[in-house]
C-alpha cells in the first residue's frame, strides 16, 4: 500500500508526518534540529530516502542537513553520519559554504542590488530558502538562497557552486528585497526538458533558463505591480510562488503579491485569473496532481494584514484553471482564525484522490485526502510552519 511522508519545516525545528494511503492516521516525529529555523526540507524524486534540509539561525548561520534514510538520521554532508570527523582525517567540509561567483570568467560579476531605501547594496548570503533535488540524480540538488541566487551541488550537498548567469543577467541592480528579504524561493525543473528551469525571486520576478541554468531571461510580461515605479517593468515584481503540473510543464500558475496569474506559454506571457476570489493577495499556490486545470490558493487579507480574510481559513479551488473559484471550508476553522500560510507551505501528493497539504503560522498542518473537499489537521500545535512538502511512497 502506498504511504505519504509530509516534511514540515517550522520556526523551531523540522517534523516528519507519515501515514498510509488512507491518510487518516498519522505518526509524527520531531522536532528534528529543535530550536532552529527549518526553512525547507525536500526529498529526491530519484531516491525518496534522500532528504535535504535547510537549517538556519541568526546566531549560527546556515547548515545543510541530509538524510539517506527518509529522515530517521541526519548529518551535514561531508561529515560522517552521526560521528564527528577524526582530527585531520576528513576533507574540509563546505556544505554550508555559499560563495557568490565573482569570477571574471562568468562575464558580468554582479555585486549590488537595490536596497529598501533605493540605494545599491552588496549581495550578502543569509540562508537557503528552497531546495529542489534533481529529478534523476539524488546527488544533484539546487538551492535558492537569500540574497537571491541559484546554487547547485552535484555531490550530495557537500559543495555548492553558484549558477552565475542568473545574477549576471544584468537586471540585478533593479532587484530588491521584499519584507522577508530578497529570496529565491521557487525552483521548478521541467520534467520533459532537462535544459529548462524556472525560478522566482521576491522581489525581482520570474526567470527561465533554456540551457540548464547557464543563461536566463525574465518572464514577467503581463504582470502588473503598483508598488514599483513602472508597474509593468521587466523585473521588480514580488512573485510569491509558482506551481506546475508535471504533465503540462509549459503551463504555470503564479501567486503574486497581489494577483493570481497563469501562463500557457512557459512564462512568456501571463494572464490574471483572480476572478471571484475574495482577495487575490496570498503566498501559496499549487496544482492538483491529476487534474492540471485544478488549482488551489489560500487568499490572505492584504499585504498589510497577513492573515486569512474575515477570520476564516478557506482554501479556494478552481477547476477551470482560474477565474472561477470555490471556497473549501469543511474541516477548517471558520471564525476567529488569523493565521497565514507562507509561500512554500502547500504541497500535493500523487495518490488518487489527490491529497492537499498546507501548514499555517499558527502551527497547524492540514491535510485533505479528497482533493480539497474536506480537511483535517494532522497536527495542531507546532511552531509556525515555514514549509510543507510531501512524498508519495510506494
Amino acid at each position: 500500500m502506498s504511504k505519504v511522508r509530509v516534511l514540515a519545516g517550522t520556526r523551531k525545528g523540522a517534523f516528519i508526518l507519515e501515514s498510509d494511503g488512507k491518510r487518516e492516521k498519522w505518526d509524527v516525529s520531531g522536532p528534528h534540529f529543535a530550536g532552529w529555523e527549518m526553512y525547507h526540507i525536500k526529498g529526491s524524486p530519484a531516491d525518496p530516502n534522500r532528504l535535504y534540509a535547510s537549517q538556519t539561525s541568526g546566531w549560527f548561520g546556515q547548515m545543510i542537513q541530509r538524510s539517506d534514510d527518509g529522515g530517521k538520521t541526519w548529518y551535514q554532508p561531508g561529515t560522517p553520519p552521526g560521528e564527528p570527523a577524526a582530527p585531520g582525517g576528513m576533507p574540509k567540509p563546505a556544505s554550508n559554504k555559499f560563495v557568490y561567483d565573482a569570477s571574471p570568467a562568468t562575464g558580468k560579476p554582479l555585486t549590488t542590488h537595490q536596497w529598501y531605501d533605493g540605494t545599491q547594496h552588496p549581495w550578502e548570503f543569509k540562508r537557503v530558502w528552497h531546495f529542489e533535488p534533481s529529478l534523476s540524480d539524488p546527488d544533484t540538488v539546487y538551492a535558492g538562497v537569500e540574497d537571491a541566487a541559484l546554487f547547485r551541488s552535484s555531490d550530495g550537498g557537500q559543495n555548492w557552486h553558484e549558477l552565475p548567469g542568473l545574477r549576471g543577467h544584468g537586471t540585478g541592480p533593479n532587484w530588491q528585497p521584499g519584507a522577508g528579504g530578497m529570496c529565491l524561493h521557487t525552483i521548478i525543473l521541467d520534467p520533459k526538458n532537462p535544459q529548462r528551469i524556472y525560478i522566482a525571486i521576491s522581489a525581482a520576478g520570474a526567470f527561465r533558463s533554456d540551457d540548464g541554468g547557464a543563461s536566463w531571461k525574465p518572464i514577467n510580461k503581463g504582470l502588473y505591480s503598483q508598488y514599483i515605479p513602472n508597474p509593468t517593468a521587466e523585473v521588480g515584481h514580488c512573485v510569491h510562488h509558482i506551481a506546475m503540473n508535471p504533465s503540462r510543464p509549459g503551463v504555470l500558475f503564479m501567486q503574486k503579491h497581489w494577483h493570481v496569474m497563469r501562463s500557457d506559454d512557459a512564462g512568456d506571457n501571463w494572464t490574471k485569473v483572480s476572478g471571484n476570489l475574495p482577495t487575490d493577495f496570498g503566498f501559496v499556490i499549487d496544482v492538483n496532481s491529476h487534474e492540471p486545470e485544478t488549482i488551489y490558493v489560500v487568499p490572505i487579507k492584504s499585504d498589510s494584514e497577513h492573515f486569512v480574510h474575515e477570520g476564516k481559513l478557506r482554501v479556494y479551488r478552481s477547476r477551470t484553471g482560474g477565474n472561477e473559484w470555490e471556497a473549501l471550508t469543511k474541516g477548517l476553522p471558520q471564525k476567529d482564525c488569523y493565521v497565514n500560510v507562507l509561500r512554500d507551505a502547500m504541497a500535493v501528493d500523487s495518490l488518487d484522490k489527490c491529497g492537499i497539504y498546507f501548514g499555517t503560522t499558527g502551527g497547524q498542518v492540514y491535510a485533505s485526502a479528497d482533493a480539497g473537499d474536506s480537511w483535517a489537521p494532522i497536527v495542531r500545535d507546532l511552531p509556525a510552519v515555514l514549509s510543507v512538502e510531501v512524498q508519495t511512497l510506494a
Partner: protein
Amino acid sequence: MFMIRVALPFHLRNLAHVGSEVTLEIEGAVTQRSILDALEARYPMLQGAIRDHVTQQRRPFLRFFACEEDLTHQSPDAALPDVVASGKEPFLIIGAIAGG
C-alpha cells in the same frame, strides 16, 4: 602543546554531537584564532557556525569569554590568559541572549 577546554552553547553542542565542554590540543600560542582553528579541525561540522567561511569574521551574535572577561573584541591573535592555556579555565563561546 597545550590542552585547553572550550565550552559550547547548546546548538553547537548538538551540531558537534558533544557535551557542554570539549578539550582540544593546541600547538603554539593559545589565541582565539588557534582555538577556533583547532575546534573546527576537530569538529568540522562547526565550520561557518562561529565565524564566516570566507571572511573569518565572528558571527555578530556570538561572544568569547574567559576568566570572567569578555575577550570578544580583542585581537584574534592575542595570547589568552595562562589559565586558559593550562586548561584550568575554559574558553567560553556564548550565544547572545536574544530572540524568541
